[in-house]
């Protein structure tokens, strides 16, 4: 089963980045390999930090329906609990999207409410 991106968001506060957008996608895409392996080894949905690239890290979360959430971040300071909480809120919001009868599963998420909530969660747990 292919991993087609269904939602992307740039949650960074600073707009100036030392990494190009396509490179971040390359890193995330590559890290899916690790996620695919870890998913079967872990009994948790939150998979912690699964990959690093230079000074970037990738954390992952995999729902029981095998929808993967990947977060690429630079700041090492994140506490695992914060990341976990962030992912859990995203998961909760994703379930709300799924409940929408007009949303086709695996379809691209265009819900602005979802987007808004993801940004709010990022603000709460990631931008401290």
């Amino acid at each position, binding site marked *: *089963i*292919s*991993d*087609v*991106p269904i939602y992307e968001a740039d949650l960074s506060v600073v707009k100036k980045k030392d990494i190009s*957008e*396509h490179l971040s*996608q*390359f890193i995330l*895409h*590559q890290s*899916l*390999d*690790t996620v695919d*392996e870890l998913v079967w080894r872990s009994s948790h949905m939150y998979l912690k930090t699964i990959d*690093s690239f*230079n*000074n970037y*890290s990738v954390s992952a979360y995999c729902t029981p329906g095998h929808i993967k959430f990947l977060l690429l971040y630079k*700041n*090492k*300071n994140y506490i695992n609990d914060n990341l976990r909480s962030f992912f859990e809120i995203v998961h909760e919001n994703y379930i709300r999207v799924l409940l929408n009868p007009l949303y*086709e599963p*695996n*379809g691209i998420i265009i819900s602005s409410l979802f987007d808004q909530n993801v940004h709010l969660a990022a603000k709460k747990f990631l931008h401290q």
Partner: protein
Amino acid sequence: MPRLGGRNVLMKRGEREKEKVSRLELGSRGIKCVVLSDPLKDSSRTQESWNAFLTKLRTLLLMSFTKNLGKFEDDMRTLREKRTEPGWSFCEYFMVQEELAFVFEMLQQFEDALVQYDELDALFSQYVVNFGAGDGANWLTFFCQPVKSWNGLILRKPIDMEKRESIQRREATLLDLRSYLFSRQCTLLLFLQRPWEVAQRALELLHNCVQELKLLEVSVPPGALDCWVFLSCLEVLQRIEGCCDRTQIDSNIAHTVGLWSYATEKLKSLGYLCGLVSEKGPNSEDLNRTVDLLAGLGAERPETANTAQSPYKKLKEALSSVEAFEKHYLDLSHATIEMYTSIGRIRSAKFVGKDLAEFYMRKKAPQKAEIYLQGALKNYLAEGWALPITHTRKQLAECQKHLGQIENYLQTSSLLASDHHLTEEERKHFCQEILDFASQPSDSPGHKIVLPMQSFAQLRDLHFDPSNAVVHVGGVLCIEITMYSQMPVPVHVEQIVVNVHFSIEKNSYRKTAEWLTKHKMSNGIINFPPETAPFPVSQNSLPALELYEMFERSPSDNSLNTTGIICRNVHMLLRRQESSSSLEMPSGVALEEGAHVLRCSHVTLEPGANQITFRTQAKEPGTYTLRQLCASVGSVWFVLPHIYPIVQYDVYSQEPQLHVEPLADSLLAGIPQRVKFTVTTGHYTIKNGDSLQLSNAEAMLILCQAESRAMVYSNTREQSSDAALRIQSSDKVTSISLPVAPAYHVIEFELEVLSLPSAPALGGESDMLGMAEPHRKHKDKQKTGHCMVTTDHKVSIDCPWSIYSTVIALTFSVPFRTTHALLSSGTRKYVQVCVQNLSELDFQLSDSYLVDTSDSTDLQLVPLNTQSQQPIYSKQSVFFVWELKWTEEPPPSLHCRFSVGFSPASEEQLSISLKPYTYEFKVENFFTLYNVKAEIFPPSGMEYCRTGSLCSLEVSITRLSDLLEVDKDEALTESDEHFSTKLMYEVVDNSSNWAVCGKSCGVISMPVAARATHRVHMEVMPLFAGYLPLPDVRLFKYLPHHSAHSSQLDADSWIENDSLSVDKHGDDQPDSSSLKSRGSVHSACSSEHKGLPMPRLQALPAGQVFNSSSGTQVLVIPSQDDHVLEVSVT
């Protein structure tokens, strides 16, 4: 528990400690610890004492260690608690805790030793993180000194004393500390036989260090970290290889591949940094940098100096020359890709491959780069990652350009030009690349580069005009398409061509002109689904998992053996995916060349939606299917190989036709009715002077109205014109000149027709209900009940387009039904005519006449109708009555004709005078011959009749006239100038009010002379009280058996009446009892019994007998002793 053997070593070393332990033990208790016997004596006691000693020693030693280590740990913890105090030094604490680790290590407690290092690691990491958060400890600044040496991890020695000392001296850098810490962890992990954890931790460490240096803002010369990471990776890998065999390594690639990949990456960046990747080789600046980097490595360590493949030597060699770098980099890359591929980490393999491709491109080896780029692109396309697709495609475009793959390059360019993830400039650049190529004069004229249209422009919708996509031969069809140009700039397209496939479907009703014009009604807009490429829809098209629970129970005791989940559609889900879409394969597109094309030349496609209109004149009838859409820009052809959903248009040819149909549901006879003429011109063009020639039916008029107009419509029902209709009528022919109309049009006009009222109908016998029966040469349909009588008129029409006449049948319904009846009052006679309106219309009746057609002067018909105008509403009846009067002998029969004028009540004035409605009938034997009078008298001495008591019934039959013509039949007997006839009377009480006692019927001989009277007396008994109607007295003619009419009957009647005749044969003389029971049968059937050789009964015509007592009633009072009163409520 620690083993004793391990501790012996320790005992020798730490003798002081042992003494201390013993002293403490002895001192506190002040008693002997052990009693030992002479070991040389071989007794059980000796052995026991030694055993006890050893056990005790062991226990005490353990206790001692536990106590001491516990104390040490307590001290250490106290030291750690002071870490917030100023002047606390991590290095100092490090040494303390490491001492504990050493103890554990010496005790072979590697796990415990490792825990000490992990704690130190965690503590340090926490400080670094806190430092990053602004909560810095001042001792940490010591680790922030610039990195000057980056010689990598050293894992071959159990303890790197050099580094340990530097930590002790508080001179270690962050890298030194980390390196030392890891080397210790590595050693312990290897003792613990966990080499894969080493690999895993190493990767974490390397990333961690890089991040920590960033966090602490340690100044690092460019490339230094790359060197350090590269060396460290290789060192870890070599260390692991050193303690594992090949098979172990091969089966644990998943753990080590990360290090390989990291090393590859770092070598790559070193290569780029030192100018080893450029075509020209390193410049002086690059060389300086290389020298600096190599200087930072220091001298090779003695322990690896003799190893040929040491990380140090590798790095030094790789940085030494372009060729060496290439060799090392390719080795590493290929190894990494191979490893990733072997463990199924395809994405990672592709990512490394992409880097490799970049390297090849730098090295001007595009042919080698292509395969990696294609592989990566395929992967990204399959998973729909837009930005990697764009980036890879951009590299691929460059590669293809270098390779001279013109078609591929143009295709990739078109994809990139339509890619919204690129900047406007980049898109324009790629678009220009295509246009530049297209404008180049081609070497071989006619050579086409065929590219898929998808990326160039998309077909959004298609619109037909006429909207039903049906057009007649010679008609013009417009097809308007919306093309959404994906290009960033306007593109001039020489021509846009639609290839059309032509097919003829003969003998198919669905393709007839009638069907097409009527049924194929759509809005004419076909929408094409927007292409989702490059995002594949494969995932969405996969069916959902069909999971079922599965329980397997043992057959003996029904206990659960196994359970599980079964996926029923595995075969669907695990099917091999189609290898990537043909998007990147231009060769798959074949250009179709057909005879039928729609063309549109010189179009400029603006970015976004463009309307393009194709115009075609339909030629051959058939079905045309749009197959391919091509747009040509110079020698570049963009082709949409299949237009889907299927788009078709139909061309038909049609024969001219004439339809005539009534406007209303049915046409009514006698009044003007509108009929619609529809001329479908088909392929025939109506010229000036063309006319329809209607041969007049004799009883149907075509009413010419001056103002009638004809409408001309196109075949799609759009009105095009209207014209006055000229109608010329002669005796035989009505000519309607048609307005001029082009082919494939419809002319519609209405005419009024009038079916003349039906010819006079002959009524039946006077005692039957007469029914108007128009006798026509046409077939008449007469239905029972309230259906109207219909008449068909056939009109033959000559049409200008055909030598044959068209025959059209119109059916008219007669709106009225007429019945007549003869009414008597003694000898006075009345004729009643009932007109019933069966239609839905209301009519106005006027001028009713009844005339005697035989025209006897003697007879007079006096109308009793007062009003001359009479409305007759729908489904209602109107009655007319005339009295018959005569002076002399009445005629035996009367032929009458009833006529009444009628016109629709709603219409004010009709242009023509309508013919009256007529009805003819015949009344026979209407003159009253006999008067029958019945009376009932109460029993003598009684005032009223009583129930249950016999009353007398007096019937008197009186002849009212002398011998008449009608009397002359076989019943008439003549004797002495006196004539008499035989009659049979019958008293019947159908309502069972009376019981007739004795004979209820009898035959009498009636003299045929005026005022001759016959009286009959009989007894009847009333059965009920009240006013009872008198019983019926019926009179029949009693005919002797020698019948002259017997021959009139056919065989059927004989058989039919056989049983009855036999039955009757038994009693020749009809007696009362038998007749009473069959009275009704006789009366009904009597007229049919003529043919039998026996006396027969014939009912007298209704007009000949007048029952003067009909309707009279007799009062019957209940008998006194009858107390039962019957009340029936209905």
